[in-house]
């Protein structure tokens, strides 16, 4: 009988522990309870339960810890300082898959907050254990381990290097080939986080043969998977020309263009980012993209999106146009300028407008043909108003000024330059007047138009320092017209005439 009593005590204790741990796990799934739990010293209480005899209690305790650390970085730090990680890591290699999943969850939750916490995780030898988990049969365990590795590698390149040194990359590439969609997603996102820091890391990922598998998965219908895959490819391609060429050789074009028509916004954004990272390296790659019809797809994509989703597409057009004038002409021919102008008018964010302005500047700066194509859409007036607007940020103003300068220096399309004469500030005005002074001496029709639209009048009203460039241009323009006309339009002419009438003695 006493034996039964003894056992009863133990059973009660076990029930109490189970109940406590389950309740804590339940409470910790809601973020508002976390503060109270922390004050109640839950970490120190959960620590011994991690090493409990009963597996269910262990697993639930690990799960509770993970949830607590996930929402709050103080608790995550407390997990680290409370010396919980070493036993967790040790048991990671021994226990069953549920415990492994929960432990991986804890590591992920701690590692996501800051590089220091991630460093602490690395120092207690968690990486090897996680890599061993990557070889496990159960896809859930693999997913948890890959996710934890991804969060650790996200912070900086040293941590990524540590993850790579632990031998994670080949296993991740194997994970990508698994049939489960969630596992593929996580593995792709981890590869993306690893390769984003430096070219060497990206090269390591490429050497493991990741590109071919990633390229195959672009066709997968799952939207989140496509997002991650495109992000991974763009992080690989962004570092150097060779890596970009390797990505292109995996025959992603023209399949990637279908991603630009996807219904999910982020798939479009990541697809445009990938194409941008490839296009920015060299004219040959941009040429290849243009030949594959990429420019048309990106232009359509810009037209159909709103907000920051457009940004990579706009930058891609800018990069393509910047490489050479033939490519810039190809962009113009593909009807690239109207969406950019629409973007300028519709968007509210300054950085998107700045990107659109930069792209327009790159398109229009090559030859007078290009500048004419840009000017015909009447976007120069918008650019000028954005430059003069006091609410624009400095970056936007600087980019607008440069773009205006570049386009105006090549623009010979006078009807577009006319309206700018009236509002422009002196530093822009000098370019506009310079262009007029180049075109007017040779074109009679332009001269007539210039006089009738009031341009000559405006020129006379400009005050310029004698000897400055502006004055020279003004003199050149004045010399294109007969003297009486110039005098007629000079300011104060009517007063002068009146004066002469007053002083005149009638001859009888």
């Amino acid at each position: 009988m006493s034996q039964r009593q003894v056992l009863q005590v133990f059973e009660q204790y076990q029930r109490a522990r189970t109940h406590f741990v389950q309740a804590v796990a339940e409470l910790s799934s809601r973020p508002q309870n976390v503060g109270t739990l922390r004050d109640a010293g839950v970490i120190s209480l959960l620590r011994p339960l991690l090493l409990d005899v009963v597996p269910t209690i262990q697993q639930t305790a690990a799960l509770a810890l993970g949830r607590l650390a996930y929402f709050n970085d103080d608790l995550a730090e407390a997990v680290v300082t409370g010396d919980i990680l070493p036993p967790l890591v040790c048991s990671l290699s021994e226990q069953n898959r549920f415990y492994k999943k929960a432990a991986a969850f804890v590591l992920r939750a701690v590692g996501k907050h800051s590089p220091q916490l991630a460093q602490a995780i690395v120092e207690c030898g968690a990486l090897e254990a996680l890599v061993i988990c990557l070889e496990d049969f159960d896809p859930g365990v693999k997913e948890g381990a890959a996710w934890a590795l991804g969060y650790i590698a996200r912070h900086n390149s040293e941590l990524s290097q540590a993850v790579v040194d632990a031998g994670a990359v080949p296993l991740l590439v194997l994970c990508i080939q698994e049939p489960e969609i969630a596992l593929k997603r996580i593995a792709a996102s981890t590869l993306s986080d690893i390769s984003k820091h430096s070219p060497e890391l990206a090269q390591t990922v490429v050497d493991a043969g990741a590109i071919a598998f990633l390229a195959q998965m672009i066709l997968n219908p799952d939207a989140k998977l496509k997002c991650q895959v495109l992000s991974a490819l763009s992080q690989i391609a962004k570092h150097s020309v060779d890596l970009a060429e390797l990505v292109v050789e995996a025959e992603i074009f023209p399949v990637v263009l279908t991603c630009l028509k996807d219904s999910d916004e982020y798939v479009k954004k990541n697809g445009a980012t990938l194409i941008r990272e490839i296009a920015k390296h060299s004219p040959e790659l941009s040429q290849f993209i243009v030949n594959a019809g990429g420019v048309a797809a990106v232009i359509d994509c810009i037209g159909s999106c709103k907000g920051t989703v457009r940004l990579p597409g706009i930058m891609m057009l800018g990069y393509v146009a910047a490489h050479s004038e033939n490519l810039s002409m190809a962009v113009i021919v593909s009807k690239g300028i109207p969406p950019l102008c629409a973007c300028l008018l519709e968007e509210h964010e300054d950085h998107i407008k700045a990107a659109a302005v930069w792209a327009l500047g790159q398109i229009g700066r090559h030859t007078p043909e290009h500048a004419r194509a840009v000017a015909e859409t009447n976007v120069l007036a918008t650019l000028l108003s954005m430059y003069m607007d006091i609410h624009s940020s400095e970056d936007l103003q600087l980019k607008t000024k440069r773009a205006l300068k570049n386009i105006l220096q090549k623009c010979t399309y006078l009807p577009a330059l006319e309206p700018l004469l009236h509002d422009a500030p002196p530093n822009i005005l000098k370019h506009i007047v310079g262009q007029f002074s180049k075109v007017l001496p040779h074109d009679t029709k332009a001269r007539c138009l210039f006089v009738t639209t009031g341009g000559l009048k405006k020129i006379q009203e400009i005050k310029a320092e004698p000897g400055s460039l502006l004055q020279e241009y003004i003199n050149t323009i004045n010399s294109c017209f007969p003297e009486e006309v110039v005098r007629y339009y000079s300011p104060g002419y009517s007063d002068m005439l009146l004066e002469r009438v007053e002083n005149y003695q009638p001859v009888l």
Partner: protein
Amino acid sequence: MAALVRLEARLSRLREEYFRKNRSVDEDRKIVYKAAVKIQSWFRGCRVRAYLRYLSKMVILIQKWWRGYQSRRYFRKMIKTAYFIMKMNFYNEMAVRIQKTWRGYYVRKYTHNYYALKKYLEAISLNNEIVRNELQEYAEMNEKEKKKKDLEKKEKEKKYKARKMHYLLSTEQIAGIYNSPFRKSPDPMELLLRQSKPLSHRQQRVKSPFTYDLYDWPTCKRPPAFPTGEPLPPIGRQKPQGPFRDTAEVLRQRYKPLEPTLRVAASISSPLEKAREEMKREEWIKCIHEHDVLFTEKILIIHSRFLPFSSYHKNKKYELSIHASEKKGKETYGIKHFREVQPNKWIAGKDFQTVLPSIVLFEKFGKTYSRAGQIV
């Protein structure tokens, strides 16, 4: 005497006359003096003025000549510069013409093919249209797929609902909810209810001790299946009736690898014979005969010259014969140097279209005797 008397009578008056005369002269003296001065000064002035006039006339003359001379010099200079400028303008224009033509030719030949660029841009627009159309089709297909899936899902849900609520079906006595007597025809739900089979009792899902509610991960819904090494044989397969041997035995025998005996495995000729044949072959190559053994050492050196690919000539430099050392073909002096043509650098394969008739003399270039080495 009468004159004397008269003179004496006038004598008394003489003094007064003399005095009066002197007085009047005295009185007039000032006036006369002033008049004389005036006359003189006026005359001197006239003289000086005449002199000055003369001087200025001379000066004007000199200046006139001098200025004329200067201006003519200047004019001559101006003419010279104007002429020079005219000449330079003319030369410039001619040079511009030459340069214009040459630059246009060079750019069109070696740098930039305008028509190719135009074709390229047209091809790009065409390609863009195709790509846009295809992407549009793809997007539409996706839309349709999504809609279809949504519809199917809704259908399935409806059917499931009907199966669950099959008890709301109307009977003979009582009209169901969806079959109101005031309606002309029953509600479509009613028709669905009529078609649907009632749901059986909900099966209790057996929860294995490995599954747990908190671990509802998307990738791990079923309990673990431990992979086994090789597939186990099918249980309960019936043995084929008859005097058949065991299948495994038969297969083993059928696919038994060949085990050749030693005699079969060894080659026909013995190793001794093989080595002998080898030696004979070598001697044949080296042209050494067995009965020439005595002279073997002496003639080895001479014979080695005739050995093919021998290394006797290894260090000797090969001397080209005269025929091989000169370049073949026509001497290029006077033909190739003055007008170079580099077909590998051209950007367009075809030659330019000729508009004007060519000059006959230039046409004969490179074609007088043979048609070798000319522009296609």
